[in-house]
């Protein structure tokens, strides 16, 4: 499949201070973004955060109220969508119901005046492994197959940028997993820039090289999945990607690369490099799987009570209440070290300093929590 590789060096996609207003409502707020050529980029955020609007502006289906969009040296801000070398995989695929699969895929090629489309279409069909369906109509295909045809229909045009608008939203969980791997494979094979819009953090983390987390028309944080997960910069990112425990703390001292903080008589340590605020009020963040039900370490809380317990196969998830009535989530790996605690049991918690991070304490502790399962 090396043949399908297109390395045209088209240049990076640059969004420069774009905004989009619908009347008084601001959907996208002064957003700047550079997406490197050939990368798999995800725009992740809850519904209504402006990610789809951003995508539609790149596609040319909406015009930004302010700002510019360019690919490489070319400014495409006001270019009509049919003139842009950008293709979209729509949320519900939007295949043409009156055309065969072959003609659906050939549509873009024919519009650009290419007469001999057979080879290209067949290549695209074999890329998505559906060569045997070319004579069918879209309605005769399953959801997963339609999804792949939508990808083939866009990719056959070798766009500079391929936009994917919640492409897996309509598929069931198992098929979604399979398609995530499939899309990643296709992206590596064709080498086109993929911009993937999703509200599913797991989907974004599985596929994208770089993720931009969006909230209320702005980018909260951008980075690799590991970066965002292990060192979030805002409470929103910490809560939106996976689960997170956030504890309100006060800074006692900053010295020797360590920040000593305290909460209700307990002192904890955070590496200075992992604190993103110079404020005295911080939020100490630690992921549930990093917490241990022990009392040996530097960072520990004694006298806690188990208030809930659920067994989920690979781990047991506990809800543990601290002496000052804060509930923390603890995931304990399902192996020989399992404590098998019951509701009401007394327990201690501890964790390693390098697994914590310090965020600005002025933020809402619950920002971004319970948002990812709408739609």
């Amino acid at each position, binding site marked *: 499949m090396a043949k399908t590789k297109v390395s045209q060096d088209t240049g990076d996609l640059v969004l420069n201070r774009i905004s989009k207003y619908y009347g008084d409502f601001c959907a996208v707020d002064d957003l700047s973004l550079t997406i490197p050529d050939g990368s798999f980029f995800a725009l992740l955020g809850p519904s209504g955060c402006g990610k789809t609007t951003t995508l539609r502006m790149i596609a040319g289906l909406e015009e930004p109220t302010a700002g510019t969009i360019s690919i490489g040296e070319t400014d495409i801000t006001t270019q009509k969508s049919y003139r842009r070398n950008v293709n979209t995989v729509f949320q519900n695929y*939007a*295949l043409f119901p009156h055309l065969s699969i072959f003609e659906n895929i050939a549509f873009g090629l024919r519009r650009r005046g290419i007469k001999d489309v057979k080879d290209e279409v067949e290549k695209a069909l074999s890329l998505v492994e559906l060569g045997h369906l070319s004579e069918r109509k879209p309605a005769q295909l399953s959801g997963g197959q339609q999804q792949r045809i939508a990808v083939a229909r866009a990719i056959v045009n070798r766009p500079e940028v391929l936009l994917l608008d919640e492409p897996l939203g309509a598929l069931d969980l198992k098929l979604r997993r399979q398609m995530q791997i499939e899309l990643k494979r296709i992206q590596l094979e064709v080498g086109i820039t993929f911009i993937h819009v999703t509200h599913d953090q797991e989907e974004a983390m599985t596929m994208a090289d770089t993720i931009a987390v969006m909230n209320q028309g702005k980018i909260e944080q951008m980075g690799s999945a590991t970066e965002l997960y292990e060192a979030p910069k805002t409470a929103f990112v910490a809560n939106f990607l996976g689960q997170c425990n956030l504890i309100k703390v006060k800074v006692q001292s900053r010295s020797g690369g360590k920040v000593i903080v305290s909460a209700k008589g307990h002192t904890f340590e955070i590496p200075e490099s992992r604190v993103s605020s110079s404020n005295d009020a911080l939020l100490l963040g630690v992921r549930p799987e990093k917490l241990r039900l022990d009392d040996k370490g530097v960072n520990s809380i004694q006298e806690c009570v188990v208030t809930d317990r659920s067994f989920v196969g690979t781990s047991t998830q506990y809800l543990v209440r601290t002496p000052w009535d804060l509930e923390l989530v603890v995931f304990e790996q399902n192996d020989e070290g399992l404590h098998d605690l019951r509701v009401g049991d007394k327990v201690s918690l501890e964790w390693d300093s390098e697994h914590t991070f310090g965020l600005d304490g002025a933020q809402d502790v619950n920002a971004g929590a319970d948002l990812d399962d709408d739609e």
Partner: protein
Amino acid sequence: MAFLHGATKSKSGGGSAVKKRSLTPYLLLAPGLIWLITFFVIPIFSLASTSTMVRPQGSQIGTYVQELRFANYVDAFLANQEQYVRSFLYAGIATILALAISYPLAYMIAFKAGKYRNILLVLVVAPFFTSFLLRTVAWSQILGDEGPVVTTLKLLPFFDDSIRLTATPFAVVSGLTYNFLPFMTLPLYASLERIDPRTLEASGDLYASGFTTFRKVTVPLSMPGVVAGTLLTFIPAAGDYVNAALLGNPSTKMIGNVIESRFFAVVDYPTAAALSFTLMATILILVTLYIRKSGTDELV
């Protein structure tokens, strides 16, 4: 015992429910079926038998005997060829005009009307609130020598003062177009409204300009509406006689007018019946060819 009794009862109850369910479709069909048999199937057979009857020599007007004279069809057709051709010609022109007027209208209501959509749909149907005859008579007023259309045309340099619109083919075709317009607009609207706007966006995304999108996506997807609309307009227009009678002159007579006068003025039942059958057969053949050609069965 009470328990046993109850059990048997419920069992038999279940059995009769199954029986009832299998009868239900027929019961639901019965009113329509009886209606159609009484007022369509039986009359059509009686019409068919009339069409081959002959009036015995010297008998009274309106007396006919069955002689299976199929030559009636040939005679009737040959005597009225001109009106036949004119009927299909007028109906065809009216259908094309109605399509040309309705498509932009239905498109606008489906895609651009926003909150006015329902009001506009009511306006499309509104003419049905007054009588068909009344509306057709009104057209002879509108197109009359002192009416607004003619007076306006007379002001224009390229028409001389002798211009007349009533009792012309133009008036008949206008009347036909007008009267069947809603039958074109409504199915067109229904099929346009069903188009997923995202397929139109997808077309634009795939390098099709607005006009190409219209040609390659909108039009093919609205074909079921086009076919339904043209049939609903063409079929009644081809058999219509009211418009030609009220807005035309003797040389704009359509086949409907001939049938009407054969039945009621001349009392020549066999010729009228033969003409009716020929008209029906021609329409059936045309419609079948049309549906085959447009291939709509694949679309729906």
